């Protein structure tokens, strides 16, 4: 085993405490800059949407900055921007995340504003109708971008009509149907300090931070919330091929299948395995064979996107010349298959372990990186310094174990393959010779039926 864990306290101390209103806080002090980054994670996402109100979590989040009992939309943006701060809001499957990046000298003002947004949003109709149109417009504009179309098509081909495939923004018609009352009800239901946590990286010492948080966020009150469980994923036993025609002069390729949850004990060995196959950039087999040997693509990659309550997915992708796209796809699958047969070489495994071990100091270099690590710890219930502990675990895996991991978690025999291609493209990949090809109109990606 590598001796990376000899620093028993980790690279910086991690503290946890709870505010008087029940909001859990995870915190690390970093003193080289007078800077604070924090993220409030509220358990409210698209899984909490019901009755066809698709896009409600996202719209509620986006509307937080569009007016409160004390401030208009313009006053909010003026105030936060004058402070030189960045305030971002993002709603996903399970959570809504409010991120504040601010000079510590302005933290109190930034927190007061954040507190107002959380507690007193008014979701004014005038701003609501404008924002809805902007979201709908950008949904339509996303159909211009083959990368985004591919992403959307892959998710739908993989998850079918399961809510995980539903666009987080909703659809033009579902967004239009949402009302201020819907947003108020969603906010009332889910935005509560007992249904959230806060992660902070700052130069302030703990007592000072606690005092400031109590003073600004302490008045935020609310109870814990029950969430409904998502239905299980539809089963996938056979391959699927979906073509989406667009005016492009390359084939945009995504192929993959279900993956694992972030908390899966095999996750570290899956990462190690995937580094060698497709995740390790210049060092990966995909890159060496598809880009360097064959010159098929500029970018070729594979990754496991871990899930939270449900398994995530594995995705391998590239953009490649239309004329040889069928060959490039076949080759990519061949690389997966031979990896499953022979596993990594001794050199590949040694290099991958050595990469992860040497990369430890690069993982927490900035305030933002540390914040990301704290959020992962808290959200997934991972141990302190999990990013070091997982790398320590990796050092122990044998070639045989990585080979078994490839055999267990890669499924080249039941791939979901999605392609964005020009309309004159003829699909002809031997691995899929008996699979019926579906052709999707990209405009249908703006609709949703569950």
């Amino acid at each position: 085993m590598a001796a990376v864990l000899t620093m028993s306290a980790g690279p910086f101390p991690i503290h946890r405490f709870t505010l008087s209103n029940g909001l859990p806080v995870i915190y690390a002090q970093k003193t080289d800059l007078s800077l604070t980054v924090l993220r409030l994670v509220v358990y409210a996402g698209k899984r909490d949407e019901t009755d066809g109100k698709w896009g409600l979590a996202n719209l509620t989040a986006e509307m937080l900055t569009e007016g409160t009992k004390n401030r208009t939309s313009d006053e909010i943006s003026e105030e936060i921007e004058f402070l030189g701060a960045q305030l971002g809001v993002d709603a996903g499957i399970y959570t809504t995340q409010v991120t504040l990046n601010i000079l510590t000298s302005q933290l109190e003002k930034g927190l007061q504003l954040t507190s107002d947004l959380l507690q007193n949003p008014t979701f004014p109709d005038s701003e609501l109708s404008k924002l809805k149109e902007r979201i709908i417009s950008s949904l339509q504009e996303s159909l211009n971008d083959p990368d985004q179309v591919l992403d959307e098509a892959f998710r739908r081909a993989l998850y079918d009509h399961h809510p995980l495939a539903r666009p987080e923004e909703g659809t033009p018609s579902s967004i239009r149907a949402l009302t201020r009352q819907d947003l108020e009800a969603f906010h009332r239901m889910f935005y509560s300090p007992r249904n959230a946590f806060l992660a902070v990286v700052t130069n302030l010492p703990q007592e000072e931070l606690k005092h400031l948080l109590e003073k600004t966020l302490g008045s935020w009150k609310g109870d814990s919330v029950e969430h409904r469980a998502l239905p299980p994923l539809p089963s996938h036993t056979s391959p699927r091929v979906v073509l989406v025609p667009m005016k492009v002069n390359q084939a945009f390729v995504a192929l993959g299948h279900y993956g694992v949850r972030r908390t899966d004990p095999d996750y570290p060995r899956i990462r190690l395995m995937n580094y060698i196959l497709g995740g390790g950039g210049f060092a990966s087999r995909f890159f060496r064979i598809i880009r360097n040997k064959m010159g098929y693509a500029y970018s070729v990659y594979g990754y496991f996107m871990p899930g939270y309550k449900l398994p995530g997915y594995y995705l391998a992708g590239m953009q490649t010349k239309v004329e040889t796209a069928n060959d490039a796809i076949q080759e990519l699958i061949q690389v997966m298959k031979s990896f499953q047969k022979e596993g990594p070489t001794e050199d590949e495994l040694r290099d991958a372990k050595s990469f992860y071990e040497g990369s430890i100091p690069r993982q927490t270099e900035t305030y933002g990186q540390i914040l990301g690590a704290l959020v992962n710890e808290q959200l997934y219930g991972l141990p302190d310094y999990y990013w070091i502990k997982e790398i320590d675990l990796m050092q122990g895996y044998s070639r045989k174990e990585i080979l078994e991991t490839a055999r267990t978690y890669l499924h080249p025999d039941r791939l979901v393959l999605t392609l964005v291609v020009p309309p004159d493209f003829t699909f002809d990949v031997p691995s899929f010779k008996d699979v019926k090809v579906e052709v999707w109109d990209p405009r249908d990606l703006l609709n949703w039926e569950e």
Partner: protein
Amino acid sequence: MSLTLVALGSAVELNFPLTTFTLPNGLQVAVVEDHANPLVSVQLWFRVGSRNESYGITGISHVLEHMMFKGTRKMKSEEYSQTIQRWGGMDNAFTSEDQTAYFSEVPKARLKDILEIEYDRVANAVFREFESELNVVREERRWRTENSPEGSLYELLRATAYIAHPYHHPVVGWMSDLENLTLEDVERYFHTYYVPNNMILVVSGDVTPEEVRPLVEATFGKLPRRPDPPPVRTREPEQEGLRRVELKREGFASYVALAFHIPEGKHPDLPALTLLAHVLTDGKSSRLYRYLVKEKTVAIDVQGWVEQQLDPGLFVLWVAVQQGHTPEEAESLLFQALEDLQNHPITERELEKAKNRNMANFVRRYQSVVSKGMLVGTWAILDRPEAALAWPKKIQAVSLEDVQRVAQTYLLRDQATVAILRAVPPKDMNAFMKKMKEASQKRFRR
């Protein structure tokens, strides 16, 4: 050297000690100390980019960048990156109009090793797998430019704003040049521009100048000085009258882009132009966002930036048009807002906000050893390494009058290039799809 920024009335201390020296062969070296983490970033900056290219060889600087990963007399193709990854590090490179930069980040203990392999890479380069790498570059062009509506529009905007100066050419090169470049072209280009007297080496991280210097002397110090590369002669003639260009694309999104000529990157008007870009487009409280997005609802987003370059650059405004509106509506509102700016100067508060944002961004942005090195390298190309640390003070010193003056001097209608991306609805999706289905059915009958 410690850098004190004043933002929002408080001083923010940035520890940014910078030491520079020049070797007898002309190599400039800049060392940035940052002892927060046991890491070091080594960066090779060459004063060459698409600015140095001419018809027939456009894109060659970028192709050469790709070829620099193809090994040396000692190392196999891609062995360089694989070695760095084995150390737990990362590396990459980029080419722009004015420069080609190679950068890495590795554990500090590898300082000597990384300098050795970086030196080997320049001293003993062997360009293997040229044809296949040229394929890769063509795929990169298709992906980043041709299949990206915004990438295509940007290419057209620059090609229209510049008619004589090589900034006319896209960095990635025109496709027909990428189809015809030869290995001999690339080798000749390499020998002309990759000389120590045309290079800056930046070492940033948990190091001291005292330990870096002998290591650099023992490696890069061995490169022989060569003739200075030829200067770029062509200058852009003055623009007389508005230029307009349009790109039609099947799709769903329209854009309007505006470009105005501004002076070279080290010109004293650049700080004021930078703050003007903040005032106009930085954030939801910026002038153009409020006017076009929130008040008139003709746009879903507005962006603006200053292209700070070795030769005279551009001030760019970029608008994503909202569905149901035309690019012309957005364009006319943009010009109205700019005219309004000539008559209604920005306020004290707008200027202060712009400065606050610029300073806070500076603090946020230069946290890692890679980004600190990048900042110094960028300025070494534009002016000199130390200019990186002088910039925040220049921003602080900008007055209301300065901003007003640069707005009146540079953002003139007659100096503008307007580029429109007009989305036309896909003609016949059903015929498309029918054809595709038939094609994919056929294969079963074989």
